[in-house]
């Protein structure tokens, strides 16, 4: 049992933090938000550090790093409120492409590692509400090709992706876990329509409309859903770490503000009502950090234990993000609700993280459904 980071991991953290401080200050981020929420230049910056290939196997030109390294990077990207879809491309999509083991998937992986290609998972649908097996999009085998029909929603950086990993049904009714397969759909194919839009946190997303679009099968029904679940769990762990970084920074901003802002002739940090609130913020932050570690360290467990652990983590993070976000805005008073102030942007990102890969209520249901007689970290 050991929660220390290795020297290499500390160096990795340092590298990402320095990049954020130097190349990703708040004004630059603001410009990216204005331009639609994605910057090719910033993405290149991440690629130049080797980060886009962080979890890509060395055979495909990546670094082949593990979950703890990913956690370290995500904490720092969270601290800097980085908009570019590192987790979506380099952790989640990269995992699925690697699981697919096809020659074309390997090519996409190489592209990701080089920072030339963005591939993202497109699994959410208008009515799926976080349920991975709830898939209306259909795939039909016609003349030796798979043709896909359906609409995927809130696809991260959809307008900038070269390809999409699409969950689609090859059989069964809308909720049947057995009939879900995964396909790679290239953006340039006929029948692929991408409708980009910004999200509440200033990032880029898109609707993906497929009308007879051709796709290459990445994982067949039966294999696809377990891989998809695992990829989403990797995504959840990444989001947990990102949230910890964001909350850590937001709490620090709030401490700074409380120590400088004066009312009634004294710093507001002297008021006990506010001090206790800050103690509660610290509590939620440390519980969240603890469960972020838990999420990452449980990724290697068998599916059932892993899913339960990741849901437990997302419940804690959901509660913490809501509390820390709302209270840090409150503690800032009027300035906290302005667009000008960085704090509100942290709050918005934390809010969107809660609604990605399952919100608190959804995961609480998962924890309930997967409950065992025993309890605790090793249950």
């Amino acid at each position, binding site marked *: 049992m050991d929660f220390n980071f290795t020297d290499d991991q500390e160096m990795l953290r340092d590298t990402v933090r320095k990049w954020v401080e130097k190349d990703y200050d708040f004004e630059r981020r603001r410009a990216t938000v204005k331009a639609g929420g994605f910057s090719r230049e910033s993405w290149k910056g991440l690629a130049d550090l080797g980060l886009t290939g962080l979890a890509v196997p060395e055979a495909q030109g990546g670094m082949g790093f593990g979950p703890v390294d990913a956690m370290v990077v995500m904490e720092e990207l969270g601290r800097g409120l980085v908009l570019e879809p590192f987790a979506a491309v380099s952790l989640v999509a990269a995992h699925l492409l690697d699981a697919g083991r096809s020659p074309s998937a390997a090519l996409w992986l190489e592209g990701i590692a080089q920072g030339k290609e963005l591939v993202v998972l497109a699994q959410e649908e208008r009515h799926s509400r976080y349920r991975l097996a709830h898939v209306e999009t259909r795939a039909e085998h016609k003349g030796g090709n798979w043709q896909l029909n359906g609409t995927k929603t809130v696809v991260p950086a959809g307008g900038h992706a070269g390809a999409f990993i699409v969950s689609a049904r090859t059989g069964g009714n809308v909720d049947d876990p057995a009939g879900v397969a995964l396909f790679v759909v290239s953006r340039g194919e006929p029948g692929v329509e991408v409708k980009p839009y910004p999200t509440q946190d200033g990032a880029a997303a898109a609707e993906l409309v497929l009308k007879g679009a051709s796709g290459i099968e990445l994982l067949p029904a039966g294999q696809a859903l377990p891989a998809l679940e695992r990829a989403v769990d990797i995504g959840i762990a990444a989001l947990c770490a990102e949230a910890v970084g964001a909350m850590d920074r937001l709490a620090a901003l709030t401490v700074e503000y409380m*120590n400088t802002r004066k009312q009634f002739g004294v710093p507001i940090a002297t008021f006990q009502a506010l001090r206790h609130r800050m*103690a509660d913020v*610290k*509590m939620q932050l440390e519980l969240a950090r603890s*469960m972020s570690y838990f999420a990452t*360290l449980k990724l290697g467990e068998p599916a059932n234990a892993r899913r339960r652990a990741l849901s437990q983590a997302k419940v804690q993070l959901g509660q913490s993000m809501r509390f820390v976000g709302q209270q840090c805005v409150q503690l800032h008073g009027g300035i906290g609700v302005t667009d000008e102030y960085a704090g509100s942007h942290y709050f918005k990102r934390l809010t969107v993280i809660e609604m990605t890969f399952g919100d608190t209520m959804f995961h*609480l249901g998962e924890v309930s459904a997967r409950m065992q007689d025993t*309890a605790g970290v090793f249950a």
Partner: protein
Amino acid sequence: MDLNFTPDEQAFREKIHAWVKENLPREISDKVRNSIRLSRDDMQRWAKILGKNGWLGWGWPKEFGGPGWNAIQKHLFEEETALAGAPRVVPFGPVMVAPVIMAFGSPEQQRRFLPGIASGEVWWSQGYSEPGSGSDLASLKTRAERRGDFYIVNGQKTWTTLGQYGDWIFCLVRTSNEGKPQTGISFLLIDMKSPGITVRPIITMDGEHEVNEVWFDNVEVPADQLIGEENKGWTYAKHLLAHERTNIADVNRAKRELERVKRVAKGEGVYDDLRFRDEIARLEVDVVALEMMVLRVLSAEKSGKQSLDVAGLLKIRGSEIQQRYTELMMLAAGPSAVPLIKEAMEAGWQAEHAAAGAFVAPLAATYFNMRKTTIYGGSNEVQRNIVAQTVLGS
């Protein structure tokens, strides 16, 4: 980073597990598992079993006759005993006063007092709080005046847990009114059989006699029972608080009790009620998060690389969770928790009245009893003051 214990640590755990299974009397663990009142004999019997094996002072270094375990081994010992249904060791002797005697007592005092603590023969109580000094402990007024080779002690202590069984009591007493309140306090060890000491019960809202008032009327205390220097007692007491560490979160007991919440909920037919199940799920997440926080502290202690200043957070969260699991168990029983059946707290009652809901009869009393946890050991509001000071830097 690695979540798992090392093979050595795992082997250590198995050793403790086997020993506890062999040595913890079933009558005692049955009481613990069902919130049945433990007698003085029950508590002391378990203490002496541990003492005989050299484990009552499980946190002690080897030089004072302890096992010399590291932070993780201590945690594993606490976990295995708690999960097996062992009673909480009454902490005043082995956990609270012993470390102070080790750090600040004279060699003579160490020889005199530590063996009786280690064996479980001598029952210690704590004399800190006073009627006028709760959270503001440094305002305490119990006076000790030096006269020749004695201190003459006058005043009143209160909330003295299990003081009715105490052989000795360690007290914070005022020896000076000069300067800040903290600088006039001394740390005194007092024989509770001394003339002039009166112990009076305080009955708490659960109907139990757990805490007491202890009155001192011209009690003569030999001066060689002063720990360290006069007027330095506050420093020694703070050292003691620092020694409570992760223990205070009591996460191991929380794990055991969460399992019990599930059993009670199943027995009462609410486990499959989704609204109720979600409440258990919330508590389960809280317990896992608390355990992870405890493990982080242990890892930091083991490596000595970083310090993790979360003792206040552990106290707040641990006590909230203790209250929550007793609350949920009571709510699971619902109306069956309402009848006041005093005999239900006694061993042996259950077998006869099993059909009348014996299993759930003590749940409300336990819920009432646990309201103390957010008040004692520095109220949770005082803990928030301390946390805020660390976070805000002033």
